[in-house]
């Protein structure tokens, strides 16, 4: 046995202690985060059938993907969804936060109201809105016809299906972003507004040249987070329009379909996931570089 100095022995004991504290958590990370990442990439080059060992198939899974017309439909829909969600889901919470920040009454009530949908399970939101969207006697068409406006087919028409999904999602999720923007608005020093006002800046100019530049960091981060999240949209198209509807099938729904319903092909699903991961990673890298250069 090598003689260890007391110091070294203490250090070893300390390290052993630290790793004992981390052991349980690290096993979980290894099993359900780090290992699956590696396995996902490997899986995308394999064919799995659970009877024999997996077979290496090279780029076959990717080739099948590129020959599947649904593949391109899913990407187009996902990008459309993300774009529409930026238009509504990104702009609305910011506008709402700026508005709420100016109001001096019922602050607690209004914050409570806008955050309320966040506390509903998403499945409840989606199933409830399905009744609202019902073209027959749904709430929305009832209100539209009551106002003598044209009715809509909502989720059942190719033209409005995606927009309908974005509306649900915006309603359900805007509370979180609104509260974050409100917090950021409250951190803007009041002197800036006072100075701008003394210089004769209008409300609009103050918003444009004080509020938005001061919020730049939050706005940029929230946009990136939102794009990453909306590119992975699942429950709205899955539950409202199903896994085979070409109007609304998205990348994640297609992954689900490949793995668990129609194809039962985990290699194909893994290849699709890897592509989504690569796209998101590349987008994030470019976005962050661009955002830094804007400074």
């Amino acid at each position, binding site marked *: 046995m090598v003689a260890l100095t007391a110091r070294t022995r203490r250090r070893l004991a300390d390290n052993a202690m630290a790793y004992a504290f981390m052991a*349980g958590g690290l096993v979980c990370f290894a099993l359900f985060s780090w290992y699956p990442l590696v396995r996902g990439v490997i899986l995308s080059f394999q064919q799995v059938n659970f009877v024999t060992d997996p077979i290496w198939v090279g780029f076959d899974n990717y080739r099948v993907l590129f020959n599947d017309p649904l593949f391109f439909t899913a990407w187009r829909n996902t990008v459309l969804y993300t774009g529409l*969600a930026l238009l509504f889901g990104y702009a609305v919470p910011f506008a709402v936060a700026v508005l709420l920040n100016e109001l001096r009454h019922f602050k607690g009530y209004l914050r409570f109201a806008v955050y309320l949908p966040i506390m509903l399970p998403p499945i409840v939101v989606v199933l409830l809105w399905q009744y609202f969207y019902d073209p027959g006697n749904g709430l929305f068409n009832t209100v539209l016809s009551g106002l003598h406006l044209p009715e809509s087919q909502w989720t059942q028409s190719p033209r409005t299906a995606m927009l309908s999904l974005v509306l649900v999602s915006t309603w359900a999720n805007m509370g979180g972003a609104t509260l974050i923007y409100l917090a950021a608005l409250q951190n803007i020093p009041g002197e800036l507004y006072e100075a701008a006002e003394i210089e004769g800046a209008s409300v609009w100019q103050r918003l444009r040249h004080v509020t938005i530049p001061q919020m730049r960091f939050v706005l940029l981060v929230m946009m990136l987070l939102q794009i990453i999240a909306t590119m992975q*949209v699942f429950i709205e198209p899955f539950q409202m329009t199903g896994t085979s509807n070409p109007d609304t099938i998205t990348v994640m729904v297609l992954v689900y379909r490949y793995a668990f319903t129609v194809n039962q092909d985990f290699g194909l699903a893994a290849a699709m996931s890897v592509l989504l991961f690569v796209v998101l990673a590349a987008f994030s890298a470019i976005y962050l570089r661009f955002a830094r250069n804007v400074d």
Partner: protein
Amino acid sequence: MTITARPPAPPLPQPPAPPRRRRARKLDHSSTRTLISAADLNRGSGRVVYYVVLTAVMVVFTLAFFFPLYWMVTGAVKEPQELAQTPPTFVPESFTVDAYVDAWNELQLPRFLFNTAFYAAGAWLFQLTFGVGIAYALSKLRPMFGNVILAMILGSLMLPATALLVPAYLTVTDVPLIGVNLLNTPWALWLPAVANAFNIYVLKRFFDQIPTDLLDSASLDGAGRLRTLWHIVLPLSRPVLGVVSIFIVIAMWKDFLWPLLVLQEPDSQTISVALSRLNSTARISIDQMLAALVLASLPMLAVFLAFQRSIISGLSAGGIKG
């Protein structure tokens, strides 16, 4: 905003030490002045515009955020023929709680609600135990390769949940080395829940702000690492533990895609997965479904009402700092 797969943004809690006072004063000061000055709002026409806008916002917000819930609750008390009529009635003309009773009994809601609560409780226990372990070790014990581990944990934040979906599912069906199948068991939700980099990061950030002197004096008095954690670190961390606990429970209650994959056996399902399955397979009347939606929402709404202040101020106090 349409973040669907992510928890709410970082609630970075206030440190336990003095800096708190300084920040509070700054906030008070800045909240006195916003885009539009109080003077403008008090002047004649500004005052009128303000109250018109305020009224409009109150009406629109109440309609937008409370009316759907009103519709859900009242829809379920209407007699089925009233519910089916076109155009629908805005105030129920009939009243019956049959739909609620039927949903409760026939759709087996108590079982699914119990399942969800059980999964949430377990996820809470495991995530806090293991998460605090990692955060404490990385923050205060500073082992060798601690930085590498921290980087690997934070790196998993960058991974979209989707990239892991299929391989993580395969891992659950046949856990490496021990070769057990966790499908349809609570472990399929509890263990992956532990791998939550976000909550560990929040905990570690908080622990970092606890002065090391405090821990050193405890260890001089002969307290071991575990005693120090239990008697000094955790009591000081009550606010952050509360926030993280709320987020764990909300996340478990709202999660859909992962439980959909790993809980395929009906009796093991969460309320969300069960509702999705019932909606697409069983022929359930609309009034029963609406009642089921109400009953599924109640637990979280109760949590929200009870912890409203900490949830909203937790988000507002931290958020993403610019």
